[in-house]
């Protein structure tokens, strides 16, 4: 039986791991290579590195970072942040990433997902969605692009379904409302998306307690749970999370 994945997320800015609240007020959380290797040793199932600077200059830095991580980390990791072309994806995959995630570029050019899937296989292509509850229609969620700074009129659930058709092999679903709050994942959003698509959904944003992880998996239907604050600042170890989930009957890789 497939284990539910526990995925620490490392937001990287100027070669440091940082973590904020609602995408703002960033706090330093350490060196990305060291932290990645530590999580790998601690039993994390996978890692996500997001280049939150995502400028032309940081492009080169992130490739170098991926190379270094790949020398020290023997679990899969996804890289995202500012990726716009299949050539950039190719460079990251060849440098050692297992998957690449796209966000803004896929909204601007949905065909990118198809191109990437045909070349790398859809299992390599992660569609990252940053969503927040719509003010106009509180039953829906709207997606935001450019690191959450630019709201769009696109419905998150519809976009996830379209992304799957176009070639995404996984959805990394971040609730901007919940991000960094440690008040729990947005279960309704997670469930709405996981009920709609047939590809794996990673729930992201809001993890604060072990119970929250359980809720995202059981109530939200997530295939994997992503967290940052609660593990970077050592509230919980990966092992504690897995033992808790195993104790509640969820298959994990302990």
């Amino acid at each position, binding site marked *: 039986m497939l284990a539910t994945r526990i995925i620490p997320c490392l937001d990287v800015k100027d070669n440091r791991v940082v973590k904020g609240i609602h995408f703002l007020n960033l706090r330093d959380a350490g060196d990305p290579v060291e932290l990645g290797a530590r999580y*790998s040793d601690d039993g994390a199932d996978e890692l996500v590195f997001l280049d939150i600077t995502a400028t032309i200059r940081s492009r080169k830095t992130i490739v170098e970072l991926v190379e270094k991580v790949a020398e020290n980390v*023997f679990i899969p990791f996804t890289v995202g942040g500012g990726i716009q072309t299949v050539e950039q994806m190719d460079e990251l995959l060849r440098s050692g990433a297992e998957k690449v995630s796209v966000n803004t570029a896929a909204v601007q050019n949905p065909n990118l997902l198809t191109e990437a899937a045909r070349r790398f296989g859809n299992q390599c292509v992660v569609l990252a969605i940053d969503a927040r509850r719509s003010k106009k229609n509180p039953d829906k969620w709207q997606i935001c692009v450019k690191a959450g700074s630019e709201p769009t009129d696109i419905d998150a659930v519809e976009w996830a379904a379209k992304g799957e058709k176009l070639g995404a092999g996984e959805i990394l679903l971040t609730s901007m409302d919940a991000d960094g709050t440690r008040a729990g994942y947005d279960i309704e959003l997670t469930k709405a998306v996981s009920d709609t698509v047939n590809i794996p959904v990673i729930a992201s944003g809001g993890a604060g307690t072990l119970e929250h992880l359980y809720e995202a998996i059981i109530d939200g239907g997530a*295939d994997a749970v992503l967290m940052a604050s609660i593990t970077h600042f050592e509230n919980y170890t990966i092992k504690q999370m897995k033992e808790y989930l195993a104790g509640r009957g969820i298959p994990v890789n302990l």
Partner: protein
Amino acid sequence: MIVVIDYNVGNVRSVCNTFRHIGCDVKLSCEPTDIQGAAGLVLPGVAAFGYAMSALGPLAELIKKVARTGKPLLGICVGYQMLFEKSSEYGRHTGLGLVSGNVVPIPSGRTIPHMGWNIVKLPGDMDLFSGLGDEKHFYFAHSFYAEVTDNQTKIAYTDYGFDLPATVQKANIYGTQFHPEKSGKTGLKVLKNFARICEGTNP
């Protein structure tokens, strides 16, 4: 020396890193002399099947020829899938045909891709799994799988609502659908075992 075949697709570097990490003499190369002189070959690959086969180009014939001399060959992920005869991923493609079987979509009715850590039941007679016990978790990431029809092939399975072949062994030809280079300590052990197999055939 183990030669990891360099054909310009994803994960080749990760596979080399992993062999280096476990202290193996490894070279990333697409040179025919290296391939012919290697103690063992690894065909990695993170790519769509058709793209990977065309990227392999004329190396395909050389790999087939060398594999038939008895040199150990390990295919990983799409490199494993290419060991078979055909694939239907984005069109119809011909593989290396070293193992009988076809690569087909994972049947619907479950989450696809098959993504994450799944338990592989380890048969005692597959030397790739020496010292690993009865079962272990390995990392998978794929939407297609090989329907193995070769009756000379040993198969290790994982359960994804059906028995999904996770590893094959046919004489000197080995293949893993999962990524040993990304499967933590367990994966490192599989690659160590492969390195030992290579040493044995080319002292």
